[in-house]
């Protein structure tokens, strides 16, 4: 039998990214356990919160309807902490990560490929949440574009936040550690203006909420119900960028450490 004239060659970064992302996206429908529970939780919280607190919130200093006030919380609850980090841990534990390390695939495209799949998941999660908001009467004065920006900002936040679980996965290779990174979610989401405006928060919580970047993301998202507010949206983007730099630096540091051969 003759040796076939098929020779391996180096691939460029973008081709590698496309292949890595294709693998991550292809397996998404086979991993519905990731998507379905994460969709139920925000819808449940949204329904319960607006059902239980709408009347109480009438006394609060709100510029918008409480249902609209809560919708950004539902979006952030849906996308925060959701990632393919669990799949990455399985790759590490099953040796598939080592197999990838032995190929000409660029190391960074492995992680970025997973994040592209995350982005797809965020959009899948955001659409029903926003649809539910519209069904219960939430209105976007900024129109369709406002809805798209609303989903985009939520997805962008979800994407930068994945840095934490990926960092956990890469530093530890341990699924429990990845699951525990979910704990970060609580201070990020709830020590904010998630329930009432800052003016209605008491002493220390008001101070913490002022320092919490997620407060500004919530405010930016809420601004889309009323008008295009460049300042609020700018603050939201800055907050996302700040957390993003920290979280993604950790993740890529973990990747470099994990793929080091010395």
């Amino acid at each position, binding site marked *: *039998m003759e*040796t*076939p004239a*098929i*020779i*391996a*060659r*180096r*691939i460029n970064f973008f*081709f*590698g990214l496309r*292949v890595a992302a*294709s*693998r991550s996206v*292809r*397996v998404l429908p*086979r*991993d519905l356990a990731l998507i379905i529970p994460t969709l139920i939780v925000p819808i449940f919280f949204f329904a319960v919160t607006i059902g239980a607190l709408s009347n109480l919130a009438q006394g609060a200093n709100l510029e918008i309807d409480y249902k609209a006030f809560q919708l950004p919380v539902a979006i952030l609850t849906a996308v925060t902490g959701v990632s393919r980090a669990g799949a990455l841990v*399985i*790759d590490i534990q*099953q*040796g*598939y990560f*080592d*197999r*990838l*390390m*032995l*190929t*000409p*695939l660029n190391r960074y495209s492995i992680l970025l490929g997973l994040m592209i799949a995350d982005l797809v998941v965020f959009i899948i999660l955001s659409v029903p949440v926003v649809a539910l908001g519209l069904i219960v009467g939430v209105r976007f004065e900024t129109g369709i574009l406002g809805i798209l920006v609303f989903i985009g900002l939520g997805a962008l936040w979800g994407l930068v936040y994945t840095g934490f679980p990926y960092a956990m996965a890469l530093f530890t290779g341990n699924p429990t550690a990845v699951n525990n990174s979910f704990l970060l979610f609580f201070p990020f989401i709830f020590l904010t203006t998630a329930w009432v405006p800052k003016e209605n928060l008491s002493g220390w919580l008001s101070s913490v909420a002022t320092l919490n970047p997620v407060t500004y993301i919530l405010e930016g998202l809420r601004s889309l119900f009323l008008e295009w507010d460049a300042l609020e949206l700018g603050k939201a983007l800055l907050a996302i960028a700040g957390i993003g730099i920290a979280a993604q630096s950790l993740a890529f540091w973990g990747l470099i450490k994990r793929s080091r*051969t*010395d």
Partner: protein
Amino acid sequence: MEFAIYCKNLCRSFGEIQAVKSLTLGIKRGEIYGFLGPNGAGKTTSLRMLSTLLKPTSGEGWVAGHDISKEPELVRLKIGTTLQEASLDNILTGRETLTYQGRYYGLSQNQIQTRIDELAPLLDMDAIDRRVKTYSGGMKRRLDVAASLIHNPEVLFLDEPTTGLDPVSRIKVWEEIRQLNSNYNITIFLTTQYLDEADQLADRVGILSGGEILTEGSPEELKRKIGKDVICVRVGENGASGTSNGSGENGENNKSDRQELLDALGKVSGVSSVDEQPGELLIGAENGTAVLGEVAVILKGSSEDVIEISLRSPTLDEVFLEATGYRIKTHEDEPTSTEETQTVENLKN
């Protein structure tokens, strides 16, 4: 001589622990080289250095003409590596696994299909569109090997390719390794902790213990180095084994009888060694036929329950024992669920 794999004084330490002390070897193109040693001998660390997954602490190495430290990307294009555990994504199908693997190496869809067709004998084509998680251990292992070969590498590294496989899968993997080597002239570097695997597959064997090669050569050369025949005496539990019934006064007597027997056998002219092992005695002699009669007479006069006496040439088992002082397992020694797993027994203790 152009080597497919060559390394000189390759060392690797993990903190205080020196996993590989000073590895020097040359493996010719088209050769199957078996790296034989117990767990912790440094086999996997050596393989990971040669396949660029681990940088050597010191020393140098070349694989497929490229420096493993300075040109790891070029080495990776020319090697295929199958690690100890099947490195597969269980959610993908067999075909997807091979397709993605081919894409990582820049192969076109047509090239990948060509390679899948060529590798079909190695694969379970009926199951190729099933998810990997439904595969048996043997099927996974063969898919793993096929994935390592999809880009047509010059050198294939196999880390304990049959560990954990059932006998049928093991023989199938051996057969495929032989065919890969003969059909494609692929150089194969395999690590194993099984003597029979090294004996069956390898053109040359390096015996590794404590992070260094103790002896090296073809299985036949290594056996000839031992230079003696082996008289193997299988003994039953009712004799003077001193092990199974060795309690109390009877036990002491049995031990004493066994020691007397060993001494008597050791004094036979032409006998060079007597090893006592569970269920058997191994008597080494330059000319086994010449001493067999006298050995049989001594055994008949002893209280030993002799089941069988056989004369054979040395096996890699004896070679390993001679080189390391340890006995290593064969596939037949694989522990059952009720047995305690113990890879190496120190026979000197």
